């Protein structure tokens, strides 16, 4: 696979990387592009862009509700990919899509990844697609269209499997800091930095980004002690709830609160 935006970012950027997860169509259908532009403006290192699904079984209440709101607002996968294309025209920031398998099956696996390549998506996180189903249904189309798959590993993942997931992943590995769904209090409270350290010492090919449990400067710095950076999802969506028309200010305040405390 050719060297891409994600690889360049991890190579060139010193310090801890910050990625933000945004839900397109949330809080309003038109929020996607202004929110993304504001995040880019504030120097976020890359964006994770959710693809809403009616039954998000790995997500806690905040992301569930944001996804539901987005769908109620009329968001769908075609519209979402148009928004992503617009973000790409505006910036060369790495873009990672994150979403459940079913909408992709309905769009058509081949058609979906062809479109991702066309509009400049770098990688996908598919939270209900484990390695085995990835190989069966997704690997061929993703490789053909130069899309990286990013797997999640958690403290319950055997280290042997961590190596296997690393070997298939491109860009980075998404480390889940505790066995929990996104954005729950236990995810914040029980961050297992020991596990992150253990994984960081395996000599993996991919850098580590810590996925769940970050909501402020303190949790960001704790989570990223043994990782290249962190991804903030639920806490950001909460902050964006009433953001319409004020995306720039809210995003600025939020990003500062993570970066500087």
């Amino acid at each position: 696979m050719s060297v891409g935006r994600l690889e360049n970012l991890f190579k060139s950027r010193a310090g801890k990387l910050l990625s933000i997860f945004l839900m397109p169509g949330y809080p309003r259908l038109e929020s996607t592009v202004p929110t993304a532009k504001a995040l880019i403006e504030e120097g976020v290192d890359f964006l994770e862009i959710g693809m809403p699904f009616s039954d998000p079984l790995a997500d806690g209440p905040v992301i569930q509700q944001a996804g539901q709101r987005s769908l109620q607002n009329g968001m769908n996968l075609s519209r979402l990919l148009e928004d992503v294309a617009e973000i790409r025209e505006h910036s060369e920031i790495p873009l990672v899509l994150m979403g459940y398998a079913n909408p992709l099956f309905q769009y058509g696996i081949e058609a979906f990844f062809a479109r991702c390549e066309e509009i400049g998506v770098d990688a996908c996180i598919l939270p209900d697609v484990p390695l085995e189903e990835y190989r069966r249904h997704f690997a061929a189309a993703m490789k053909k269209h130069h899309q990286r798959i990013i797997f999640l590993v958690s403290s319950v993942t055997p280290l042997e499997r961590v190596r296997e997931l690393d070997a298939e992943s491109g860009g980075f590995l998404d480390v889940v800091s505790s066995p929990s769904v996104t954005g729950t209090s236990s995810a914040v409270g029980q961050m297992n930095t020991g596990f992150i350290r253990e994984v960081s010492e395996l000599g993996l090919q991919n850098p580590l980004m810590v996925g769940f449990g970050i909501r402020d400067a303190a949790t960001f710095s704790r989570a990223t002690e043994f990782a290249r950076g962190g991804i903030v999802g639920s806490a950001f969506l909460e902050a964006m709830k009433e953001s319409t028309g004020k995306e720039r200010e809210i995003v600025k305040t939020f990003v500062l609160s993570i970066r500087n405390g």
Partner: protein
Amino acid sequence: MTSKHDLVEGNYGVDDEGYFGQFGGAFIPELLQPNISQLQREYRTLLEDDDFQREFSELLRDYVGRPTPLTFATRCSEELGFRLFLKREDLAHTGAHKINNALGQALLAKRLKRTRIIAETGAGQHGVATATVCALLGLSCVIYMGEKDIERQAPNVGRMRLLGAEVVSVSSGSRTLKDATNEAMRDWIAHPTDTHYIIGSVVGPHPFPDLVARLQSVIGQEVRSQLALQTSRDYPDLVVACVGGGSNAIGIFGEFLHQDKGEQKVQLLAVEAAGEGLDSGKTAATIALGRAGVLHGSYTLFLQNSDGQVVEPHSLSAGLDYPGIGPQHAHLFSSGRCQFESVTDEEAVRAAFWLSRSEGIIPALETAHALAAVKRLKGFVGKTVVVSLSGRGDKDMETYLKWSSEIDVRR
């Protein structure tokens, strides 16, 4: 690799990758992978273990009350012109076939050293069965149930609590069975080491569809030996069962799956809930209207819109009010082995009244769908038909009473 199971079930069983034809698989978050892969590796060995078999069959006999009778429906048979037998799962402890699976999985959970059981429930039947076996075996029990279902199934909520289970109200999404299932999965993700999730039907990621089918296979096995004693041969011409997720149907079909051609062919008819009608927008007819995709961990058929968002189903019967169907059923449909029909709310209620007055058996609303399909069968004169009487109707009395004043049931 060929196991005894594969030889028996030909192409209709699960393959080594967890698929039934193109359906099935295990679409699960990586956080569930250690649990699921342990189950995948160990479930057959555990189920075939002598000690497990002994304990399971003793409890099925002494606690559940198996074998359940195979009742010849005299008056219905006279009216219909064929011999109709009722497999009486309504007489199993807790009033439905659900207990077979709940008991088997709870015994499995003990062997996997799990001390905490979680389950989802819609109408409450699977929840009651799970709470029951947890009380029996001393396991702690948490039942996830949609807020809406808690409102409309109050007696079962009371039963579960009386049995010592914690009932958690699910307020996410559509606040019904599909969201209760999501919430149970989320719980399992957060409790990876001490908890086993007893899925209530032949749905979910591999190995659940095959695991639950095996635990329910006792239904069809009993039918075979009972027919041998009560008729001149050990198989019927047709087996009929209702399907939501499809566990009672697989349970009674499994034994006859391989009799798929020639003189000894056993026809299989699965009956899904049309709700207010196939084109009403208020239906649970998955096979008739669903498309293939990933729901609750498996690739199967379910009701969804063109963007791949799950569509909320409707059926008067809470047990059939599920947007999907087990992957093995999707395969039995696409391979042509099993026929599928649908029955509306009203047809089901009429069939429930019909059986009540003809045979003195009040069936569950779910079961009534199968009976409605039996009533309209053509071309079976002189033949033998077995219907799975999957549950009893006590829980549906409110609905039946309401309808009996609204429709002329004798028409």
